[in-house]
């Protein structure tokens, strides 16, 4: 799904620590996911309006993110507030990074460019993050494999799968026509599901990726 069409999972919440940023790609659109020092998450176009440097290479300082290249600083609305080479300049409103709506739900960061998209709702008290996995396969192939395993659909590109006594929330992000990110959390407290269950689920996901990326090997095996 494109960012314009609805909410897209772009990272596990636990992957984006306070004061850090990371790059991601949704259907070819490069985005930066960053968390300010108050803990709020932001998803923007991953491009400084000045010289095009990736903002995901930048530095988070308080509630600003600064471009690595020339230090242009942007506030949480994407508005440039300070240009170090011109410290007295009143930065015009036109120097702004395009932003997306961002929300954290089910232990994941979701983003959209749609004004009226709604996130699915499930009754979840606790979550245990597992990992995000990048698979060199079309989203349809990954989705078909998960459906074959019995995944119950929750939303476009997301579902719940019973596995090894756990309930997994699986969310798919189409990186490109041939690459998919799979974000995985266990529905349940980390007191119960942390440790061995987390590791087991991560190994299962890596094994799934191997089978999807090497269908001939999997058939022989």
């Amino acid at each position: 799904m494109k960012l314009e069409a609805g909410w897209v999972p772009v990272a596990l919440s636990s992957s984006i620590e306070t004061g850090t940023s990371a790059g991601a790609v949704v259907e070819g659109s490069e985005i930066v996911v960053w968390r300010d020092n108050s803990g709020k998450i932001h998803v923007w176009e991953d491009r400084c309006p000045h010289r095009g440097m990736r903002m995901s290479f930048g530095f988070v300082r308080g509630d600003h993110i600064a471009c690595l290249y020339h230090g242009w600083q942007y506030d949480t609305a994407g508005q440039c507030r300070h240009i170090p080479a011109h410290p007295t300049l009143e930065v015009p409103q036109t120097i702004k990074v395009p932003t997306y709506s961002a929300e954290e739900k089910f232990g994941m960061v979701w983003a959209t460019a749609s004004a009226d998209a709604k996130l699915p709702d499930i009754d979840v008290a606790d979550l245990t993050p597992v990992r995000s996995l990048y698979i060199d396969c079309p989203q349809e192939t990954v989705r078909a494999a998960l459906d074959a395993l019995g995944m119950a659909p929750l939303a476009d590109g997301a579902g719940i799968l019973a596995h090894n006594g756990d309930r997994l929330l699986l969310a798919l992000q189409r990186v490109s026509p041939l690459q998919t990110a799979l974000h995985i959390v266990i529905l349940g407290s980390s007191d119960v599901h942390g440790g061995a269950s987390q590791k087991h689920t991560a190994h299962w996901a890596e094994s799934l990726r191997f089978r999807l990326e090497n269908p001939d090997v999997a058939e022989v095996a």
Partner: protein
Amino acid sequence: MVEAARFTFRGRMAPESFTEFALHRAGRLDLEIRLGACDAASATLSVKGQADLVDAFEMACSLGPYDCIILDIERSGTA
């Protein structure tokens, strides 16, 4: 400080491409812009806005879009 400047960029120009580039850059830098003549050899235009941003506009246009090569820039202040 607000400054107004008139520019003539000379070189190997793709008029449509350069004009689009100049308009985009002026918009990004919050400058008023008035386009003058633009052909395969030169483009004339005037901009007005914060002095630092007029300088930034000149720098951007000196690099130009990928299909133009700017060899010379003439700049003068305007009233």
